[in-house]
């Protein structure tokens, strides 16, 4: 990220979520981003994941300058390169666990149900495949969300407060699962306000008021 700023127009005022961020993450690195609420952690993650675009500066991910991508290219970038895990899971409520995992491939010609089943198995959800999100516990929903993020075998895994809505034991399990992804050469960027979670990462970056706190 080179001199990245993100401002939001709130009618009469402007909120600066990120202010001139410079950040570089190596391939295969596990990075934790910490900071208080409103420090810009989630905004940073959204920019790296191609969910949002910067107001100023450039975001280069896997050799692509995201600022220059068209809407269609950005969609393809998200589908093929990025897996995202959210605090509130964001599963489709009317689809069962298995369908939720495969949702990004709904329009694709190749879709491996076997891969989805393998993920369910690995994440201990094999008895939950036909359950709707509303029938699953928070931890189970987060694991389905993780399986969905991993389904496309992404190069980058982004996790926004993945332990924020699950109990401590499940939180540790989720972080361990994320950490396991390193062995596949995936870059993992985790956002958390919990230092115990962040300490599991290779490197910690702290944000405050939209800026990186010098380490």
């Amino acid at each position, binding site marked *: 990220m080179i001199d990245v700023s993100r401002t939001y127009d709130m009618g009469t005022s402007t909120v600066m979520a990120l202010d001139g961020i410079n950040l570089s993450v190596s391939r295969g690195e596990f990075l934790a981003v910490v900071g208080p609420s409103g420090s810009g952690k*989630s905004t940073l993650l*959204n920019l790296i994941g191609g*969910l*949002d675009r910067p107001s100023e500066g450039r975001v280069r991910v896997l050799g692509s300058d995201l600022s220059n991508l068209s*809407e*269609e290219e950005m*969609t*393809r970038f*998200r*589908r*093929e390169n990025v897996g*995202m895990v*959210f*605090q*509130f899971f*964001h*599963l*489709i*409520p*009317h*689809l*069962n666990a*298995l*369908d939720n995992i*495969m*949702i*990004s*491939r*709904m*329009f694709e*010609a*190749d*879709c*491996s*149900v*076997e891969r989805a*089943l*393998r993920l369910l*198995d690995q994440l201990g959800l*094999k*008895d939950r*495949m*036909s*359950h709707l999100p509303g029938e699953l516990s928070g931890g189970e929903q987060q694991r389905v969300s993780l399986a*969905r993020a991993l389904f*496309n075998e992404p190069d980058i895994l982004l996790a926004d407060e993945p332990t924020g809505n699950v109990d401590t034991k499940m939180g540790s399990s989720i972080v361990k699962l994320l950490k396991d992804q390193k062995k596949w050469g995936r870059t993992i960027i985790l956002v958390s306000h919990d230092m115990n979670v962040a300490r599991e990462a290779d490197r910690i970056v702290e944000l405050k008021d939209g800026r990186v706190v010098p380490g």
Partner: protein
Amino acid sequence: MSEPCVTPFRIKTYSCTDLYRQYNSGGQILGTVKRPVRAGGYILRLLERNWGRGMLTILAVTVGVAFLVVFASLNSGIQDHLENRAVAENDPKVAQHYEDLGEIVSKWVMVLLAVASLLVMLSVGNAILISLSQRKKELAILRAVGISRGQIVQLVVAEAAVLSLYGFILGASLGACLSVLFDWMFTNGIGTSALVGPSLVTPGVVLMAALVSVGMGSLVSLPLAVSASRVEPVEIFRGEV
């Protein structure tokens, strides 16, 4: 795991237990399935969840299509009858009168057909509008995981087409039954009209009803779908603390 699975990738229902057993035994799970079928599974799940609203829409489309079929088939019967009377009539003034009458009836039937078509379009449009306003977050999730704007448009239009199709099937069946009933009543001297000939449900009438319901239903949902597809992926965070 007795509950059946319906994936967005195939409509066919299968047991999750069987699926998992297949997986464990190393068998082939599923092959590639064609695109519309997969999107179809998603839409069926969606309609299943909102069955109440879906039923209301289908009912309104059914009524509209039934009206269309009855009016159109009655009109063809009336026109045939008046034409025959005009041809058989020796007095040119009376023959002209029959022709004029045919034109008037035809115009009024066109107005009724337009009202019925409007009912169909408004029902489908309203259902899709409400559905989309309640599913903004869901569409944002789809966008966030890599579903394109064009694909969202396809999903929404297909949803409208499915609702309209159900309405068309029910409405055309109901309309055909009513037309046959009216035909039977007129041929047996029940009812008031001595001006009505056989009111037949022709393939043309069915085609028109299909075009109006499925075609117009899909068409009216198109601008709504395009507008909904513009949702930004970051909308998924709206309302979160």
